[in-house]
């Protein structure tokens, strides 16, 4: 579904991504792991077409992704690590993507109700989204992303700031989503979560792709010494 070939991204003198090449399959959960500053968010932003790579090619279903930018932006949705809320009600936040796509008022109402049930926020429709707790905001962000039924959902540390209960709701949503045919790419520094949820995993270190493979294999028999140290918690900075 996604092919990255030699993706390089620089911010001034800093090389955030250094010739990263990856293939990501459809209807799977792909986890990107690595320490802070490894380049996970930059990789996700490029995949979400929020940042353009300096070098390399980004192919989406065999075609150059940037040449189909407008179309793909309606099929790829990203949820940020720190949820950003529109300063309006939960209902309007979740309905935003559907309004852009011209859904009728009745369709929107039905779908928003479904999403609120999915993220367990029934009865929150009229609350101002900015006044919710961090965990509730993250769930609104997930609902807002899911309601548009994206082909590809990109999640940047989706449970980093959540308590166990909120994290479990989000993880359940991710699993249900993949069952419905959506592809999920998620950055996480929670190794247990990567192991629990993902089918394939990529390990980034200082902007370089160190290892990629099936989750079980990478965690059980890492091929690279750095991966092994990272998984074992022996990589200090």
């Amino acid at each position, binding site marked *: 579904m996604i092919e990255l070939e030699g993706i390089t991204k620089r911010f001034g003198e800093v090389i955030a991504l250094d010739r990263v090449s990856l293939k990501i399959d459809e209807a799977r959960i792909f986890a990107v792991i690595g320490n802070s500053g490894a380049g996970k968010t930059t990789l996700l932003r490029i995949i979400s077409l929020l940042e353009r790579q300096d070098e390399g090619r980004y192919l989406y279903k065999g075609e150059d992704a940037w040449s189909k930018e407008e179309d793909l932006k309606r099929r790829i949705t990203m949820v*940020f690590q720190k949820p950003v809320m*529109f300063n309006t009600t939960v209902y309007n936040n979740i309905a935003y*993507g559907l309004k*852009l796509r011209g859904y009728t008022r009745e369709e929107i109402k039905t779908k928003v109700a479904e999403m609120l049930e999915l993220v367990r926020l029934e009865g929150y429709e009229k609350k101002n989204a900015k006044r919710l707790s961090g965990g509730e905001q993250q769930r609104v962000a997930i609902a*807002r992303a899911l309601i548009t039924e994206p082909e590809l959902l990109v999640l940047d540390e989706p449970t980093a700031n959540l308590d166990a209960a909120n994290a479990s709701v989000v993880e359940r949503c991710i699993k249900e989503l993949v069952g419905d045919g959506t592809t999920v790419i998620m950055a996480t520094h929670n190794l247990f979560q990567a192991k629990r949820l993902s089918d394939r995993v990529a390990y980034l270190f200082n902007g370089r792709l160190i290892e990629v493979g099936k989750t079980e294999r990478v965690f059980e028999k890492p091929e690279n010494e750095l991966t092994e140290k990272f998984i074992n918690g022996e990589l200090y900075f």
Partner: protein
Amino acid sequence: MELIFNGIRGAIELILGANPDVAEIAARSVRVSGMATLIASTWSLPAGLAIGLYSFKGKGLLKSLFNSMLGIPTVVLGLILYLLLVPSGPLGFLGLIYTEMGISFGQALLITPIIISFVTTSIESVEKEVRELAKTLGAGRFDASIAVMRETMAGVVLSIIAAFNRAVAELGVAIMIGGNVFVRGSALNTRVLTTAIQMYTSRGDIEMAIALGIILLLIVFVVSMVLNFLQSRFA
């Protein structure tokens, strides 16, 4: 202290007695400064939005210019406008000197930097994250810009409150362009609250000055509260 207490007592009597001169001057102040805010908004809101939303060469310089104009002395602006608007001046043909519209025009120029700076700052504070959020949900450039503008509604309202308050409370432009003209029953009066306060104080009519001062403060508070209420309703 006695002067102040007597002044306040007399002021309250003047307000409660609905003194027609006081009422006329207060109404003119609101009308003139309201018109100034309206005029300034027609060019300042689009300008603020454009500066906040788009990147272009010289943007930083333009922002610095408007920021530095925030503190322009009203007397200096009044003097410049007076020289431009007097009958022998280059803009004398407009016939704005010693008119309500002349004061509104001068106050509009005074508050232009306030609206532009507030709007620009409020857009820039949310622009990147809201634009990105809208894009990730499928918005194109236009829809993303609309989303950013919606998020800055509070900043826009604040800019209008600040601009009106600055206009209604300024003295320099009102006195130099308006001339503090007052003839009971005349349609050509230009006396507003600030010019009247200055005049009554210099004449020693402290009761009248305090009464007008209280009304000026009330106008500022009421306008701020009403706009804040409307803004919270919008949000």
